[in-house]
């Protein structure tokens, strides 16, 4: 099972780091990074030595589920991305977290926990990209949700952090449940959750639009696309390593990854893809514009991420095999920029563009490296980023000029906000700050190096990009990555975009504030507002319902009996049963029985008007005695004897209880309680009427052949002339044992409630 090695290594990172962290806090990050790199090494090695393969391990045969893993281009690319960026971010966090924790006033050992979570997230991500089963996809997806929740909410004392964590949890959680519903529908439809099989069967029998929409919703939520985008800017409250990892290379990528993985299902559904396309463009535009006006630099990056994944979404929607490449190239660029932002914040203590600037002198290495990353993000040549826009333009060019124009504007905006960001950080008048720790800068440098490497040697990118594209399309990819110095559409668009970007950056001071106002206005009707409104209304509804909710003991009781009564009456009404009610005959011998019943009823009625507790108790005793007569006349002397005894005992217990209660309190309660509510009468009426009708119905259908007759025959065998005794102690003796245990349990309750030491010591 060589395919499992990278996965297992990735899974092992977090525990290993944790163990190492127990030994020495600083060791955790190194251990984790080493593990991640080892996993990456194993991955690369396997790629180099073996081809794509699948692994199927039986898991839940009841549901026909297996743990299915795949090693194909898509999983390889994304896993490498997750592992590589993960290793760098973990190392970065080694430098970042102690300072951060110190600022937050938290113990230094929390660093290990943080790194453990990051590594766990990395493992979940690796899992997500390698599984090949619809259900497993969801499982892994939710794993990333859970861990990201913990990571975003890592600064738990910070209310903003908490709110952001909850928002991301709910939004990504809810959308992923929708994804799950879609996956479940597909799995049920195709009779399997195994992705290759599903895709194979979908080739003949396309998936339903509903299911696809569900899947897409899950993906869009994860990738922070309109209208689910608003969690991402808020998630910037998290420590920077989280932002740089989750919100560049990992979590946000997961959504787009899902769409790529499931692309063969979406391929025939052009309307769904058109919808995705629209959402992609929308996210692109919205994200880019917001990135142009936001002041906190992490938020700029967040909106940039939204926009960039909009591009990726557009690529997927267009069915371009360049989509994986786009994501893979974007990830290091964005991660590097985030890391830069974190370093700047740590060094300056500032979080807004307006508060920093001119750092290029104090942090030259960082400035350089981040410049490379920024160039990559804005697709300047000689960076790997150039090719992401190339595939983008290539795909748009095939759809026509309108698309090309949109792409041009988008790319121009990208350049503009990237320039604004970098310039905002490093440009302008010189500002002196202490040097950044090396470990804060090194990952950025490494990433910049990679970006440059990809830009200089595009051939390195071709193989993985093609493999991933092929895995996405389920067909061979013909992706070409090279610099073409000719006037093809892609190049023209790129040049146009640079020009537009430069123009926008140069003039942005002129219109930025106006744009900002417009966007603020627009955001008032945006989905975030809708979400908040929905939540607010739900909260209001909840509170309102809670206030309306039944609380009084009376109502709680009525809420059991009245629905039961109504339900019972309805059932009586709607179920056709022959001879529903029989009146029965009353013989002369029954007269006494009837009389006794009447007296019991009369006494019961009288209890309702009884003033004073002892009267009440006595009237209840009247009811009991009358019933004892009934039982006697019903030829049940055992029951009559027992109920006579029980009634007497009850009366005494009640008298004992009354004697324990303070008399003035009894009197007061008595006086105050004499205000019956109409609805209580009504409830009692409903309960009584249904008890009457239901009993009537049951008694009207007495089964003549009851097991009681058998017990009479067998009483002799039980050596018990009294059949009731035989039933009680022998045939149904188990009932009696249980019943007696009930008595003892009640006794235990009484003794613990009225413990002997209660009076002396007061409450225990």
């Amino acid at each position: 099972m060589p395919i499992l090695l990278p996965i297992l290594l990735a899974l092992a990172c977090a525990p290993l780091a944790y163990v190492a962290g127990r030994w020495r806090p600083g060791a955790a990050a190194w251990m984790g990074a080493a593990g991640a790199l080892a996993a990456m090494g194993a991955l690369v090695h396997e790629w180099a030595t073996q081809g794509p393969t699948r692994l199927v391990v039986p898991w839940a045969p009841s549901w026909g589920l297996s743990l299915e893993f795949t090693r194909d281009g898509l999983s390889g690319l994304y896993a490498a991305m997750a592992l590589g960026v993960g290793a760098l971010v973990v190392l970065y966090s080694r430098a970042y977290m102690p300072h951060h924790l110190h600022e937050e006033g938290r113990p230094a050992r929390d660093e290990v926990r943080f790194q453990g979570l990051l590594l766990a997230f990395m493992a979940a991500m690796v899992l997500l990209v390698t599984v090949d089963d619809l259900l497993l996809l969801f499982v892994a997806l939710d794993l990333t949700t859970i861990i990201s929740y913990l990571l975003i909410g890592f600064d738990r004392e910070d209310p903003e952090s908490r709110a952001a964590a909850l928002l991301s949890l709910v939004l990504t959680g809810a959308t992923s449940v929708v994804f799950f519903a879609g996956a479940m529908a597909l799995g049920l439809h195709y009779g399997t959750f195994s992705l290759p099989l599903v895709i194979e069967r979908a080739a003949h029998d396309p998936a339903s639009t509903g299911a696809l929409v569900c899947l897409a919703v899950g993906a869009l939520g994860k990738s922070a696309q309109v209208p689910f985008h608003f969690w991402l800017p808020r998630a910037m409250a998290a420590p920077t390593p989280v932002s740089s990892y989750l919100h560049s290379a990992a979590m946000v990528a997961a959504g787009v990854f899902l769409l790529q993985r499931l692309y063969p299902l979406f391929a025939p559904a052009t309307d769904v893809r058109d919808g995705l396309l629209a959402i992609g463009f929308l996210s692109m535009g919205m994200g880019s514009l917001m990135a142009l006006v936001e002041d906190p630099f992490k938020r700029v990056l967040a909106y940039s991420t939204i926009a960039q994944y909009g591009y990726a979404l557009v690529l997927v929607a267009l069915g371009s095999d360049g989509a994986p490449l786009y994501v893979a190239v974007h990830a290091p660029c964005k991660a590097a920029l985030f890391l830069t932002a974190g370093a700047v914040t740590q060094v300056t203590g500032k979080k807004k563009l307006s508060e920093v600037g001119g750092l290029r002198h104090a942090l030259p290495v960082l400035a350089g490296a981040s410049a490379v990353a920024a160039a990559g993000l804005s697709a300047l040549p000689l960076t790997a980023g150039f090719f992401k826009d190339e595939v983008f333009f290539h795909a748009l060019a095939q759809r026509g000029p309108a698309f090309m124009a949109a792409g041009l504007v988008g790319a121009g905006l990208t350049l503009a906000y990237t320039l604004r960001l970098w310039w905002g950080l490093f440009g302008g008048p010189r500002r002196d700050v202490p040097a950044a720790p090396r470990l804060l800068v090194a990952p950025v440098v490494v990433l910049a190096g990679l970006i440059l490497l990809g830009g200089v040697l595009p051939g390195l990118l071709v193989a993985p990009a093609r493999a991933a594209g092929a895995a996405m399309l389920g067909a061979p990819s013909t992706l070409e990555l090279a610099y073409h110095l000719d006037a093809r559409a892609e190049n023209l668009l790129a040049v146009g975009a640079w020009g537009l970007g430069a123009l926008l950056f140069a003039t942005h001071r002129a219109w930025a504030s106006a744009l900002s106002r417009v966007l603020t206005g627009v955001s008032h009707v945006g989905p975030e507002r809708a979400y908040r409104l929905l939540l607010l209304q739900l909260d209001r509804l909840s509170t309102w319902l809670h206030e309306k909710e039944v609380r009084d003991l009376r109502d709680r009781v009525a809420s059991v009996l009245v629905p039961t009564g109504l339900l019972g009456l309805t059932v009586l009404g709607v179920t056709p049963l022959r001879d529903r009610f029989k009146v029965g005959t009353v013989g002369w011998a029954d007269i006494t029985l009837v009389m006794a019943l009447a007296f019991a009823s009369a006494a019961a009625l009288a209890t309702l008007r009884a003033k004073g507790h002892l009267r009440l108790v006595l009237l209840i005793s009247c009811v009991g005695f009358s019933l004892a007569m009934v039982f006697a006349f019903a030829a049940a002397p055992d029951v009559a004897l027992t109920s006579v005894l029980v009634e007497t005992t009850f009366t005494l217990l009640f008298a004992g209880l009354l004697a324990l209660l303070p008399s003035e309190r009894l009197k007061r309660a008595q006086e105050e309680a004499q205000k019956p509510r109409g609805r209580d009468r009504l409830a009692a009426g409903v309960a009584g009427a249904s008890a009457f009708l239901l009993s009537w119905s049951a008694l009207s259908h007495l089964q003549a052949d009851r097991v009681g007759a058998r017990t009479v025959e067998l009483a002799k065998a039980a050596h018990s002339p009294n059949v009731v005794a035989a039933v009680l102690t022998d045939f149904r003796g188990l009932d009696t044992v249980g019943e007696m245990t009930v008595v003892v349990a009640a006794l235990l309750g009484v003794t613990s409630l009225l413990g002997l030491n209660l009076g002396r010591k007061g409450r225990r």
Partner: protein
Amino acid sequence: MRSFVPPLSRLLLWPSLMIALAFWMKGGASVGGGFPAGALAGLAVLLQYVVAGRDQTRRYVAVRYAAPLAGVGLLLVVGTAFLPVLAGYAPMSLFPRPDQPELGVGGLHLHTALVFEGGLMLIVFGLVVTVIDRFALRTGTDAEEESGP
């Protein structure tokens, strides 16, 4: 109560208990059984609580240990129900079995149901007496009262 009621009630204690025991012993043959027996015995003791008071009545050992008696009763009941399984019978198999001859002379039927009913009697007696005993214990009425929730 300065009257003839306390001595009279004391006088009734033994007969009541005897009647209770008779209910127990004849339960299998006619009306009676462990429950009425226990309730009657409990009532007889209860009567002593009413007329003689808690301290007086608690001089009887059986009253002081009413709750443990109930436990013993439950042991008897559960034992009768489940001991036969040790001999390979189904739970709740009483002896003599249906195919075995009846044992007993006069009004007495020897049957494990008797033990069973005896257990019942003790349990019910224990419940009634314990509850009454705790009710009769007038603890500091408002000692535990709290103003706040």
